[in-house]
């Protein structure tokens, strides 16, 4: 496993812990289809939440959120539709969230959670 993939996987599990800590139920992790991959699918009361997780080891090359472009958000929306099609009756409302995880080599991990990014 390459170092960047390892960092990404670590960030995703940190994000999942963050979500469960906030009372969300994880429905799916790394769900794939022909359009791409959903990092985390969770349930927040009666909403299905699709979460994009971005992990960086520093902000030297920009904040993780800055790399979530409008194209990326559009793809997340398509993926959400595909997931709902495969899981009928799961929920009426959905939302798309973004989580930034900054994992420095030393020091504490920072997690930022943005709700309803589109």
């Amino acid at each position, binding site marked *: 496993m390459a170092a960047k993939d390892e960092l990404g996987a670590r960030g995703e599990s940190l994000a999942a812990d963050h979500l469960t800590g906030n009372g969300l139920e994880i429905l799916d992790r790394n769900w794939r289809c022909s359009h791409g991959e959903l990092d985390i699918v969770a349930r927040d009361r009666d909403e299905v939440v699709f979460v994009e997780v971005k992990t960086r080891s520093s902000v030297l090359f920009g*904040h993780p959120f*800055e790399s*979530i472009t409008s194209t990326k958000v559009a793809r997340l929306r398509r993926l959400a539709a595909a997931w709902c099609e495969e899981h009928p009756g799961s929920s009426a409302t959905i939302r798309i969230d973004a989580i*930034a995880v900054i994992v420095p080599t030393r020091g504490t991990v920072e997690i*930022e959670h*943005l*709700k*309803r990014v589109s």
Partner: protein
Amino acid sequence: MIGRTYAVSLLGLEGAIVEIEADLSNNLPGFVLIGLPDTALGEAKDRVRAAATNSGCGLPNRKITVNLSPAALPKHGSGFDLGIAVAALAASGTISAESIDRVVHIGELGLDGRLRPVNGVLPAVLAASRAGFGTVMVPSGNADEASLVPGIRVIAVPSLRDAAIWHGGEFEPEPVEIITRPSVEAPTAESGDLSDMISSGDAIDAMLVAAAGGHHVFLLGPPGAGKTMLAARLPGLLPDLDPHAALEVSSIRSLAGLPVGSGLTTRPPLEAPHHTATAAALVGGGSTQIRPGAAARASDGVLFLDEAPEFAPAALDALRQPLETGIISIHRANSVAHFPGRFQLVMAANPCPCGQWGARDSECTCPPNSRRRYLARLSGPLLDRIDIQFRVERITSAQLRLAGERPSLTTADARATVTAARQRALARLAATPWRLNSHVPGSYLRGRELRLAPQVTSGLDRALERGGITMRGYDRVLRVAWTLADLADDERPDETHVGQALYLRKAMSQ
């Protein structure tokens, strides 16, 4: 959280206060600028983000929406950068939102966070002061100019970091190099003294009359007669500008991007556009940002058109409106800009294409046809607005010899005479809306109070009967006669003054 501050949008010389609101929303990072910005202003979002990061007071990684209102007012230029930056910083809680709410911000940001001076700071600060603001923040490079406006506190800052510190941001001050304008030496408007001209006395007298009464002048004469030299000395004869005019002249300079310096311009400006100038160059123009032309820059001073018949007829006729009203209005589909246009027009022309027609010492080689056409390029309505039409002759060898023997009039003495004559006119016109003899309408001069005795105007009446002058010309002669009386320190014009005034109008009829 919303950060709110103010900036100024200039249209002509008038400034409108623009409210800048910044809102921070929990969304993916982005910067949205709304409220009818032009391209230069639309690029502000990239400048502001880079400048904020590089000056150590970065913007949050959230979506920032900046609104400029009133949204219907077109806004242009880069002077809003500082206002946008502090509004965004206040929205993110880095600086005090209360502090920025009372201040008008003007300035362009560099990517390194330093503030660059902008054009038009003087009229913008003036507009802020008139709108009732007590404090304005400007780039250090514009500090001199901004502090010329009385009654408003000017905060000059070299960088965005210093602006943030002033508004309560907790940063360590970091000295930066101030960005100043490239200092261009202002060209001296007054070239040479009146005393170093060798000229026939009546040419200088004609200029004195023009200066004292504010009359427009048309100088006709062969090449080498000294028309250009005479015209260039006219601003020197005019008295210093009053505070209001000085502020207006400096504001126009600021708007045109000319250096203003640390004091108000107190001397009347001289503008001498080349004869290839277009109508837009003369009166001003532009599609989004309307810029002042040569006529606006010459307001309260002298607009000198050398080789007047060579100008495009459309360009010359564009001057008719300001000559009539004293205001230059430039109309565009979405706005109208007004500039002051109270210039004194001086036109110079040769009598024919070869220039020798009517000269004593040489022969004209032009066919009569082209001679007639040459001066016909100056439209009748334009010439009709010019009080003094004077023929300048080349000096003779006898005049050259005599010139060394007589003491000649210096510019300083002439200016004193002109100032005294203007005082006299001002005292007489105190109860009227006019300030100079050239502004007074003929009906007032022919009215009961100021009507001249029939024997005084008999020569003029004869000229009118013979058809030598029109009724409008009659009024113009009366005005010049009053100026001549003011110069001679007489109560009222007498026959000599009327005769001289008639002489100063006859160049074209020869």
